[in-house]
């Protein structure tokens, strides 16, 4: 019977299932027994209980009287904020450095390659410790804050800056921005279609800029064009008013950005290098300007090589944001850790953590795959 391939294949699979089920059953029965002796009740009931701890940074409203579920939501929003900002900033910085490494200027290329070789060969955790140390130790105390006019106050408590005083016009402008971006994308698609159908070139870039910048500006101007700013003031031991970037947040954001930028720089460099030189020369022969050459010939081809590794860098950055717990930024892991210590519901807390990170990873992968399939070479 073992000579038959089908029987053997079946046997392997049955063995795997048996092993997985067996090990799983062993672990679960141990766990159940342990939970029983420790009198821990399994289940997600604890989520609705009062959390009782304060969280220093909260993009959404939260107080100690709120539930654990709410606290975890605050942690998740902190993770998403730092990851999203980090992805944008790391992409910008990384692209600049990647292009700089290819520069014909020896000095610039050298500096960029030193940056890459230093940053990516040192653990991110230590870089975070150093950034955090710089912010908390080397910056002056609140009383002796470095002041840039009335606008920016830098101290151990972080970067506090003036911010527009609350007004309906600002809110409207903030809402107008995504609408403007959506309209700009529609405009670009319309321009492309027009050019494909009639050969007429519409002012694509100008229209997009006008929509993205103009719409919020218009909303702001129509609703009274307020210019009143909320200026931070020193009252007691800290500044009040304005907005503040805490040292924890700043250290994490700077650390994540500068670290990931080194990897992104390599991705960008490899992408640009992958485009055949003949492509640029052919474009030159056709009389395209340097800008057109980059935008229409080099970049679309480089992007195909760049996007897949770029996706994994974005995923890495998001996962690395969990290092926040080491410097005290209240991200999802930090809040889950506190929850775990207070309630003893370790299994549930870790299950939530893993489920959330898996969903974020999946969402980023799906989006980038979609983008990748759009940028792929259309083969007929």
């Amino acid at each position, binding site marked *: 019977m073992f000579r038959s391939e089908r029987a053997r*294949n079946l046997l*392997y*699979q049955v063995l*795997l*299932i048996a092993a*997985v089920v067996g090990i799983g059953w062993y*672990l679960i029965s*141990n*766990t159940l*027994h*342990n*939970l029983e*002796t420790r009198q821990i009740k399994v289940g997600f009931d604890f989520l609705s209980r009062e959390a009782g701890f304060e969280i220093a940074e909260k993009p959404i409203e939260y107080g100690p009287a709120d539930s654990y579920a709410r606290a975890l939501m605050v942690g998740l929003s902190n993770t998403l904020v730092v990851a999203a900002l980090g992805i944008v900033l790391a992409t910008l910085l990384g692209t600049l450095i990647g292009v700089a490494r290819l*520069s*014909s*200027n*020896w*000095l*610039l290329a050298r*500096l960029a390659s030193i940056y890459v*070789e*230093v940053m*990516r*060969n*040192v*653990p*991110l*955790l*230590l*870089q975070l*410790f*150093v950034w955090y*140390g*710089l912010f908390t*130790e*080397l910056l002056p105390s609140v009383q002796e804050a470095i002041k840039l006019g009335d606008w920016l106050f830098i101290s151990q408590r972080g970067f506090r800056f003036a911010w527009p005083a609350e007004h309906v016009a600002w809110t409207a402008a903030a809402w107008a921005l995504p609408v403007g971006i959506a309209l700009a994308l529609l405009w670009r698609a319309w321009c492309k279609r027009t050019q494909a159908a009639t050969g007429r070139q519409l002012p694509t870039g100008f229209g997009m800029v006008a929509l993205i910048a103009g719409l919020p500006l218009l909303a702001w101007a129509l609703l009274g064009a307020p210019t009143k700013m909320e200026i931070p003031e020193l009252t007691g031991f800290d500044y009040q008013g304005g907005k503040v970037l805490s040292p924890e947040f700043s250290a994490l954001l700077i650390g994540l950005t500068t670290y990931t930028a080194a990897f992104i720089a390599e991705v960008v460099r490899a992408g640009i290098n992958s485009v055949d030189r003949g492509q640029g020369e052919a474009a030159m022969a056709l009389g395209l300007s340097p800008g057109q050459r980059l935008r229409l010939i080099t970049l679309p081809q480089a992007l195909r090589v760049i996007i897949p590794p770029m996706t994994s860098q974005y*995923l890495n950055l998001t*996962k*690395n944001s*969990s*290092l926040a*717990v*080491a410097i005290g930024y209240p991200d999802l*892991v930090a809040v889950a*850790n506190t929850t*775990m210590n207070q309630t003893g519901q*370790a*299994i549930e807390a*870790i299950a939530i*953590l*893993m489920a959330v*990170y*898996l969903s974020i*990873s*999946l969402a980023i992968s799906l989006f980038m795959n979609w983008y990748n399939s759009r940028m792929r070479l259309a083969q007929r």
Partner: protein
Amino acid sequence: MRTSSPPALEPAGPLAWLRDKLFSTRLNTALSLLILGLLAWLLPPILDWLIFKAVWGPQPVAACDAVRGQGACWAVVWEKFRFMMFGVYPFEQQWRPALVVVLLTALLVISAIKAFWRPMLAAIWAIGIALAFWLMGGGLGLSPVRTELWGGLPVTLILSIFGIGLAFPLGILLALGRRSELPIIRSFSVTYIEVVRGVPLITVLFMASVMFALFMPENLRIDQLLRAQVAIILFVAAYLAEAVRGGLQAVPKGQYEAAQALGLPYWRTMGFIVLPQALKISIPPIVNSFISLFKDTSLVVVIAIYDFAYAVKKSTETDYAWKKYFIEAFLFSILVYWIFCYAMSKYSQWLERDLSRSAQR
């Protein structure tokens, strides 16, 4: 644009080099001047702090306090060197972890040399590892040292070397499983790889530190270091599986078909024909996995295991007088990590070129 006139003789000499590399166009000239200006402005104070005004050698903390703000306090490295390197390992026994660091580094260096890539290497590793454990843990004439007291650089090396070494067979199995035709085995492998790659190492370490105790029978106590090691192995296996899969995909289909035509069964096809070629292709990505693992072992800090990073952190945290010089301590540890990782990444780049060159021959 070049015309068809004969190529001009390349002008030689430093001036020509400067003109070519720094001042070729107006934009380049502006850029070079800007960078030179920035360097002239920023470098002197940085070098002053790092080197010229810094306190070097075994000096008392008062010497550092005297130049605080102007020069770095490298005296902290002399003061805390033993603690950073070996953590809380018994002081008079620290020659043992020191030997282990030398031994493991030597093993890594030997494994990097292609002349040693033969079955004998496995035997050398087995002996080396047995020796390392004997030196760290004691017994047979050495005083025993519990793993809770292990610390510093040897722990970082052990966690990463075992992490990659023991994850390797698991990674190969997962990679084969992912490309298997058997649906259950394939879906199990895919699920495992994707789930592990989708979560941060920290959550896996938390799991090891908090949940492991729940999974095991009540009276079985497994020490913290071993738990972290198991977590790291299970984590890295997923990444190695992807590295190996890349190699498997690069092996031409004809190789599989030829083996099948010869009537070789699955495991022989894989073991004698496909894996030897696939693994050779995957060596550079495996080395890269090792580099990132070497950096990532520092995350065990969050579950309070005395690896190198945690020992460095603790070395200044626990001493009030030296506490304010923690940045210098971190910079020292950064230098150590950097030397290891930079050497390995240069090696990996060289290896990649070397392997592809010999493949073309």
